[in-house]
């Protein structure tokens, strides 16, 4: 990339930028094996794609529809862009058997008074909780939160405090978040006026 005049952005090393003759820019976003190319002019994008496919074996998926599990939809006439993770959330709910759970309207309800006092104390409780996939559930939630769900931020920060010693109450809270997700699978972030 450097050889053909691109510069790695110092603020985010996954972004490569090159300024073009007409004072616009072409951007290349790279994340492991996913790539996004953006430019004002379609010809520039096509040119870069051709150049890259000479060097690497790659697949052109056309218009960006999915990136790192995030679905991208756009409407050019109304200048809007939607970001969502519907299929990811569906997959996670399915994995934890929550696909048919009853939806709730908030990510964390007031009756959950989570504290470290609820961590398992007796051996029986510890054995009981050992079967619960707490860490992986929180991990899945965290990915959704980081990508497209700012509404989960508080709930996820609360449940992830007890990652090392989760208790029954904490697991109930995680299940509550799944139920919230059940009701809001279709939520997207909307950019544009």
């Amino acid at each position, binding site marked *: 990339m450097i050889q053909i005049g691109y510069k790695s952005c110092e603020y985010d090393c996954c972004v490569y930028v090159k300024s073009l003759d007409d004072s616009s*820019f072409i951007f290349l976003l790279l994340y492991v094996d996913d790539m996004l190319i953006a430019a004002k002019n379609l010809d520039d994008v096509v040119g870069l794609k051709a150049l890259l496919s000479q060097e690497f074996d790659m697949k052109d998926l056309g218009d960006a529809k999915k990136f790192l599990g995030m679905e991208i939809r756009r409407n050019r006439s109304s200048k809007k862009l939607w970001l969502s993770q519907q299929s990811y959330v569906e997959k996670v709910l399915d994995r934890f058997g929550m696909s048919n759970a009853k939806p709730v309207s*908030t990510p964390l309800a007031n009756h959950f008074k989570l504290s470290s006092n609820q961590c398992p104390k007796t051996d029986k409780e510890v054995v009981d909780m050992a079967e619960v996939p707490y860490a992986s559930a929180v991990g899945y939630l965290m990915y959704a939160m980081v990508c497209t769900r700012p*509404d989960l931020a*508080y709930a996820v920060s609360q449940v992830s405090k007890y990652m090392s010693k989760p208790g029954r109450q904490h697991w109930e809270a995680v299940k509550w978040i799944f139920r919230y997700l059940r009701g809001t699978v279709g*939520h*997207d972030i909307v950019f544009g*006026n």
Partner: protein
Amino acid sequence: MDNRRSTTEYVFTISGGPVCWKSTIQSIIALSTTEAEYMAVVETAKEALWLIGLVNKLSVQQGGVQLHCDNQSATYLAKNHIYYARTKHIDVRFHKIRELIASGEIVLQKIGTEENAADMVTKPVTTDKFKHYLNLLNVYSC
């Protein structure tokens, strides 16, 4: 509740949609609400600095970042360089925000709690409020 620490949280939006958000327990214990809010403002300003750099690199032109805070005394503290008995203990590094405001990179404004979408990420809120905040952030099903 376990250790008496407050929660910092912020949401940045570009053209209506949220692009960057965080909710985290503060690393030190605040002695007053003002101090907790003040630390949150500074934490947010740090993230804003990075975002300003990134956005400029992507050649998007915009003026100073507007930072909204729902705490009156924290906004005054950031703008007014006065020492009061109750705030003199606040660590000097948190006063970085004053420099940023003076240079115009960040514009700090007080807004009402009901307009502060970041409120929903510090505590459990009621359903109606929660939906209102989500609308503010342009997060909804369509």
